[in-house]
């Protein structure tokens, strides 16, 4: 039984399609990667699930089923309650995600108290436990810090703690390690993976880094201009990607083990083919 199912989701920016018939499902305890170049719409899927699409972009079709409930059929207030209770987000840039003028401790407990109605003492206790779980030393002191007093890695740990605080069943991680350097990235990936396994959370992992996908995900979707080109398991993808665009994307990723291998940009004919696929879909839509 999958925890999140998206069926034929489409979204438009004015008349321009942003997501084209995206379907996916994530089981409890599964990590699903969303990859693609910038502008492919990978973040938009996460935002559509959380109901935080930019105002100019509207979900125009399809359904998002979270734990058996069709989110679009609900009233906004109910929808927010369900999303708030069952999902959480690990954002890309921890500095903009945290309020610079409030202590970080309050920002973790806030959600527990305001949205889930926990008692304050209870929430603080939970936050302290979690900071320990994400390997922050001296959690009492850190709780009282302001975001600017912490390093990038620390801030990202805090947001991971905040995301797991209410034990959500689905977490959307939107490029959680892009702003970090490699050694910290490894620690953070390990941490997300550990926490995810411990709580059995379903995880939707948005990234442009195929290396990262190969380490944390079980399956992945390759997006191009809002359209899913390939949906496959990580094993199949990294042994034999079926779509030429996926293959090109894999080849254009630099690997330090293969320094002499030519660094080929995605060839024009592959891009043409992906574009043609998108255009064919658009034509079909206009006829209906």
């Amino acid at each position, binding site marked *: 039984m999958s925890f999140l199912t998206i069926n034929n989701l489409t979204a438009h920016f004015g008349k321009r399609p942003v997501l084209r018939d995206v379907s996916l499902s994530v089981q409890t305890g599964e990590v699903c990667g969303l990859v693609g*170049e910038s502008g492919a719409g990978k973040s938009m899927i996460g935002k559509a699930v959380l109901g935080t699409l930019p105002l100019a972009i509207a979900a125009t079709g399809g359904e998002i089923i979270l734990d058996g409930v069709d989110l679009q059929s609900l009233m906004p207030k109910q929808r927010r309650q369900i999303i708030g209770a069952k999902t959480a987000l690990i954002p890309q840039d921890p500095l903009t995600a945290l309020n610079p003028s409030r202590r970080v401790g309050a920002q973790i407990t806030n959600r527990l108290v305001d949205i889930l109605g926990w008692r304050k003492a209870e929430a603080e206790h939970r936050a302290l436990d979690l900071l320990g779980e994400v390997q922050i030393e001296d959690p009492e002191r850190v709780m009282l810090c302001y975001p600017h007093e912490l390093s990038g890695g620390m801030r990202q740990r805090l947001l991971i703690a905040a995301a797991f605080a209410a034990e959500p069943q689905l977490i959307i991680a939107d490029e959680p390690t892009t702003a970090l350097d*490699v050694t910290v990235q490894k620690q953070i*990936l390990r941490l997300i993976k550990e926490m995810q396994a411990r709580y059995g959370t379903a995880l939707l992992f948005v990234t442009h880094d*195929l290396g990262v996908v*190969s380490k944390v995900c079980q399956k992945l979707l390759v997006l191009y201009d809002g359209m899913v080109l390939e949906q496959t398991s990580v094993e199949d993808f*990294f042994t034999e990607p079926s779509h030429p665009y996926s293959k090109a994307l894999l080849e254009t990723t630099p690997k330090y083990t293969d320094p002499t291998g030519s660094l080929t940009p995605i060839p024009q004919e592959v891009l043409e083919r992906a574009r043609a696929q998108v255009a064919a879909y658009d034509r079909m839509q206009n006829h209906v």
Partner: protein
Amino acid sequence: MSETIYEIRDLRLSFKDMVHKSIFKPAPEIEVLKGLSFDIAKGDVVGIVGGSGSGKSTLGRAMVRLLDPSSGMIRFQGCDITHLNQEALRPLRRKFQMIFQDPMSSLNPRRTVFSIIASPLRLHNFDRVTLRVEEALDMVGLPRDFKYRYPHELSGGQRQRIGIARAIATEPEFILADEIVSGLDVSSQAQVLNLLEQLVRDLGLTLAFISHDLSVVRRLCQRTIVLYQGEIIEAQQTAKLFANPASAYTRELIEAIPLPNLDQDWI
């Protein structure tokens, strides 16, 4: 060994720590570069790598004198530029150019591509400016009519090409590239790297390439300098560095790169 283009000896640089400044005393100093010494030979492609806060960008900016070193010596083509004032530096600046990380903030949004590439040419009193701008666009593989465009009309990869065009327009000897591909998609990254490789070959440029991405450095650079907290912990031929890293930190940096393969034990 061919001619040395950069000679750097015991380079130190500190910033004032305004966070911990008390009201009446001068601010304490934080030493960002702690006595760096190395040479760059003509035609070299040198990678400068390190984690965030290791001082790699500071080093780069000190090398092209966008920052003033506290002590030590920087010699560019035999000429001591450590404490030259801006006026004395100006004629030299033609010879060392910089490409910045974020092209959106390093290209003036209110100017056309033509005016962006032409301004250093005018500053250095070049003749036939229009022709030179067009040649620079040719070299970075952009159509000539791009000169009428504004930065916001271009994609990330194209913008970075404009940054490169501006840097090569003055026919420099040395180019410093500070994290120029980190904001790009893998495909545009490959294009920009290939372009850079080709320009280095065709124009006989010397290049210092600052990056946190060791895969890219492995691909592009012959020599690599690893910085950690403002000190050089390893400077080595890139191939040797990867085959047999001398310091534990370098090894850690290399092993932390997630390779796109099926080894999930890595984590």
